[in-house]
């Protein structure tokens, strides 16, 4: 398991490749599925154009809660390994905010565990977004939407 908090931009595809090459060599032949979620910043929210964002976090608690989320997922699904990368600080539209990657032997675990980890991150990991609108007004995002509902 690796959990990374990035104060600068990151390339999710390079992170996945590097982790596979450096940390997953012992799993050669065992991996049958990789579940990946990448979240990127939109330039719109709640009817307004958004030109930038600042992500605040609680250092220490963030890592502790993310590790707990992965450990809980490991107790529920047969996961071989997991990688979480999350951006903090100033961020611009189209940049990656979050990466969740889960390796398993079969697709069911990869899909379900990556989804579960992502939803748990959204509700438990102590990060907060402050948006900078095109009008130069700043506002805190008040809550995350439920990822399992469509409306």
């Amino acid at each position, binding site marked *: 398991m690796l959990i990374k908090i990035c104060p600068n931009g990151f390339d999710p595809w390079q992170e996945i490749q590097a982790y596979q090459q450096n940390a997953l060599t012992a799993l050669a032949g065992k991996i049958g599925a990789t579940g990946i979620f990448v979240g990127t910043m939109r330039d719109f929210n709640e009817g307004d154009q958004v030109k930038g964002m600042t992500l*605040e976090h609680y250092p220490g*608690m963030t890592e502790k*809660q993310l590790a707990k989320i992965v450990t809980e997922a490991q107790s529920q699904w047969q996961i071989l390994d997991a990688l979480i990368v*999350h951006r903090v600080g100033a961020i611009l539209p189209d940049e990656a*905010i979050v990466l969740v990657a889960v390796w398993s032997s079969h697709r069911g675990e990869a899909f379900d565990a990556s989804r579960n980890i992502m939803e748990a991150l959204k509700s438990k990991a*102590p990060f907060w*977004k402050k948006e900078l609108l095109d009008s130069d007004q700043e506002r*805190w995002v*008040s*809550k995350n939407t439920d990822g399992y509902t469509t409306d």
Partner: protein
Amino acid sequence: MIMSINVRYFASLKDRVGRAEDILDNSGLSTVRAVWQAANPDEKLPDNILSAVNMDYVDLDSPVKDGDEVAFFPPVTGG
């Protein structure tokens, strides 16, 4: 030896109280709710605020002890 509780605030709550941190030199505080009241006597704790002790989520009636780090913050919005 002076006992203390470290209180931390994040995001919009930090803006609202106007501080990121308080150090309370008080060993008589028994719960998370009591810590808030001691640190913010003129401010009612907003309804949706989450709390943590030593970086684990707790409810407001959870106990605190000397040396704990108590944090208050709004609903999280990462990801």
